[in-house]
């Protein structure tokens, strides 16, 4: 059974998609349980896979029994084993929490929404687990199309935002496909490991460099690296919370995973960091992304849009950390993939719970929330502390590695950008806390107790949020285990 886990992790949500689609016609109440069951199987498979990887240093699965380079290979190593678990956990937690949002936003399209949800997760799993460059494109498009549709399903300005998202995403994917085409042209293979074997002979050729640049350009577009980020704030502002809870934490992080995978496995560090010296330029791009994202977030007055710009800055962290090219930086980037996915999930869950109760996510709607929604706000505070980077939440530790990498590489501008954005995040989140906490009309020494009544969000929104917040602390305290047992092996040995 364990040999089949790489396939199982994809098949479960894929079959789930069809089942949900049919169930949606029969009785829409069956949709969510099927989804949760499928995601539960995937979670089990992903944990099993990581355990297997720690034991055997890698799991390989040949689709259909065909050997590479003719057949498609699914390969799980330390890097994607970790990302698989992240996807499964985030998708599952959000699935539990999104029911009321779905009923509110699209009451007549419950079946289609969950179908797309399941398909989206299938695509993401596929992207992460595959070892074939073209197969990655196919699954990338599966995930992306479901994502576009999920966002475009919403009300208000969502279809327009979804369409713009579609345009930008398709350009990105097409560029990626083009890059793969050049790679195929010059190596004759689509299997990642195989390409990596053939490429070193032609590192100096312009084809290899072109392929790399085009691939990266496409991926940068898909991961919303500044200045190619413009689709994201709109898409995330107008999309519904049910969709955002799974799209926001995962899409961009998986794209960063793909970037790491292409750079480390296909092109290998000796090309990417030693021969083709664009790493410093990309780090500067990341620095600009961090600063721009943080500053743009300051000028927003809607929670979702502010969070979207915070994500833009976080993308800068990960991209910059990776392209520093040293062990600490890459560890920080990989760790941040995990941590940022969890933080983003918690933050959007909290925002969703608030918006559900307060009927909107403008800042003015958040007065007195600490009293009326104490549990939601507790979860929100923990998530905010993680984004700011306060120990023992996980956000601190990935920032630690990123700054450490910056110092080790002498990239003090990157360090400065990280510190600046942490300070800006303090301002961003405390602005919201101030609105939720202060009562300017109160007298100097409050007489008696407040008369507000607790009006919390529904339980199935609050509990996933609190579980997520708890996970943030647990992840933080277990950073040592994560880095030592898993991430250390994901970073190539020759990097210092």
């Amino acid at each position, binding site marked *: 059974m364990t040999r089949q886990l790489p396939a199982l992790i994809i098949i479960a949500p894929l079959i789930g998609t069809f089942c949900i689609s049919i169930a949606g016609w029969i009785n829409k109440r069956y949709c969510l349980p099927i989804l949760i069951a499928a995601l539960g199987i995937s979670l089990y498979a992903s944990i099993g896979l990581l355990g297997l990887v720690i034991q055997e240093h890698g799991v390989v699965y040949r689709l259909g029994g065909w050997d590479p380079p003719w057949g498609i290979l699914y390969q799980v190593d330390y890097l994607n084993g970790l990302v698989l678990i992240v996807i499964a956990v985030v998708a599952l937690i959000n699935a539990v929490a999104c029911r009321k949002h779905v009923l509110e936003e699209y009451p007549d399209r419950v079946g289609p929404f969950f179908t797309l949800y399941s398909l989206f997760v299938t695509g993401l799993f596929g992207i992460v687990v595959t070892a074939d460059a073209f197969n990655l494109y196919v699954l990338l498009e599966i995930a992306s199309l479901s994502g576009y549709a999920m966002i475009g399903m919403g009300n208000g300005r969502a279809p327009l935002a979804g369409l713009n998202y579609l345009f930008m995403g398709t350009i990105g994917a097409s560029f990626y496909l083009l890059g793969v085409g050049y790679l195929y042209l010059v190596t004759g293979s689509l299997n990642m490991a195989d390409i990596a074997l053939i490429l070193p002979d032609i590192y100096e050729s312009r084809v290899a460099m072109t392929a790399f640049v085009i691939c990266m350009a496409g991926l940068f577009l898909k991961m919303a690296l500044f200045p190619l980020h413009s689709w994201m704030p709109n898409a995330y502002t107008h999309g519904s919370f049910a969709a955002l809870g799974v799209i926001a934490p995962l899409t961009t992080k998986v794209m960063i995973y793909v970037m790491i995978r292409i750079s480390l496995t296909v092109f290998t560090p000796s090309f990417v960091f030693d021969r083709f010296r664009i790493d410093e330029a990309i780090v500067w791009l990341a620095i600009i992304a961090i600063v721009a994202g943080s500053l743009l977030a300051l000028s927003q007055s809607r929670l979702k849009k502010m969070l979207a710009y915070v994500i833009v800055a976080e993308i800068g962290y990960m991209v910059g950390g990776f392209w520093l090219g040293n062990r600490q930086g890459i560890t920080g980037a990989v760790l941040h993939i995990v941590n940022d996915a969890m933080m983003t999930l918690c933050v959007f869950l909290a925002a969703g719970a608030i918006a559900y109760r307060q009927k909107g996510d403008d800042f003015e709607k958040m007065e007195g929330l600490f009293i009326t929604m104490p549990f939601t706000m507790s979860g929100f505070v923990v998530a905010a*502390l993680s984004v*700011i*980077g*306060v*120990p*023992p939440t996980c956000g601190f*530790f990935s920032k*630690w590695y990123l*700054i*450490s990498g910056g*110092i*080790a590489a002498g990239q003090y501008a990157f*360090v400065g950008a990280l*510190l600046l954005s*942490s*300070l800006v995040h*303090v301002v961003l989140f*405390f602005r919201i806390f*101030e609105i939720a*906490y*202060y*009562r*300017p009309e*109160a*007298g*100097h*020494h*409050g*007489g*008696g*107790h*407040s008369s507000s009544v607790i009006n919390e969000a529904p339980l199935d929104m609050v509990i996933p949020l609190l579980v997520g917040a708890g996970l943030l602390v647990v992840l*933080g*305290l*277990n*950073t*040592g285990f994560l*880095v*030592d047992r898993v991430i250390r092996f994901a970073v190539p040995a020759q990097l210092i």
Partner: protein
Amino acid sequence: METIVSIKPFLAVLVSIAAVPVLLSSRSANIREGWTFVAAAAKFAIVASMLPSVLDGAEFVYTVAEVIPGAALGFRVDAMGILFALVSSFLWIVTSAYSIGYMRGLNEHSQTRYYCYFALSLSAAVGVAFAANLLTLYLFYEMLSFATYPLVTHHQDREAQSSGRKYLLYIVGTSIGLLLPAMLICYDLTGTLEFSNRGLLAGKVSKELAGLLLLMFLFGFAKAAVMPLHAWLPAAMVAPTPVSALLHAVAVVKVGVFSIVRIFTGIFGMETLSSFDLGSYVLFFASATILLGSFIALSQDGLKRLLAFSTIAQLSYVILGVGLLSTKGMIGGVIHIAMHAFGKITLFFCAGAIFIATGKKNISEMAGIGRRMPITMTAFFIAALSIIGMPPCGGFLSKWYLVLGAVEAHRSPVLLVLLFSSLLNAAYFMPIVYRAFFCRPEANPFGNEIREAPVFCVVPLVITAIISVILLFYPQPFFRLASLAAAQMTGM
């Protein structure tokens, strides 16, 4: 030196965190306050139980989690740490009693929240005291910043909001902007963050880098209120008085100063500091803060603001003591942590008692109050003597050792600073006492009958005043702990 592996340090920290859910679910105010006392007593008991071994020269060690290679989340209880933990946990018991009187006396809102965050803040303070390395210290330092924010801004009005912003700006701004990079530079240089008696950076850092790091640490710990990053402290006086008393006279500010001492001794080490002559910089900033703080205190009319500036000045005595880089100076500085704590908390308690009993906050309105509240004002007088550094109060002992330390280190300007600042302290305290007691009976706005503040407020301040006196004649265990600490850190 014997090392005992025991979970006690971790328990001491956890006790009050564990109390929070209990406090939140308490049905009545009495049960809630009862649990606060239980938690405070338990904390003190755990800390005190480690005292005998530490006095014998042992250390308690406990590692919670290896989060980063070379920097685990761990605890190490040594002489200086247990001194600070003893002071804070004991004073928490006293302050809890005082809080009952104060909060109920004013019928304050959100009292449960208040007690919960108080418990969390004390956890963080003890966590800092027992931190085995810079990472753990940073963790609890930040926890303290965020746990005290709701306490400082308790009143939730406009004034609280702007003070809260100042608080965050100074404290979190410096901890993220200065402290974090300094910590990471140390990690980059040495691969670890453990405090070592020789100093972590010994031999690994150049003079310029050491100087830069020194400044980053000195100002990164803005809780120590070294000028010019002191402005948050007067602003934080909008908090309810028990908060100002325990936190801003004892816990928060002492955490700042304690951390600086830890950094100087555990990260830099006496040898590095003296070989690079960095002590001079430290002495400069400390002296400037002492003198300026005392001067500004002279001009204050609001009692709490005056006490705030007095605190700013007094904190730098500790830094001064360490900056002298001599054994006696260290003893003086470390023991001042305890002496000043007891003295200042008494003064704040008195200020709060006056506010409850008469509603007065400004010194100009307090003429003749000694007739009405003799117990309170006597305690005030005793505590003021301690702060000024005069016998028969404990403050004399710490000042005496600071003077000895200055002589030992051949730093005569420091002697002048000590002398002059004591005069200044007298100059701003004595008029208050004088006017409180000696004013014409017929012009006394308070009348001549005795009407003290509620019992729960008066008893604590009497206790701490008496202790201030006792500490001069029987300064154990603090003196022994301070000597041990100084011996460990100067390697003599």
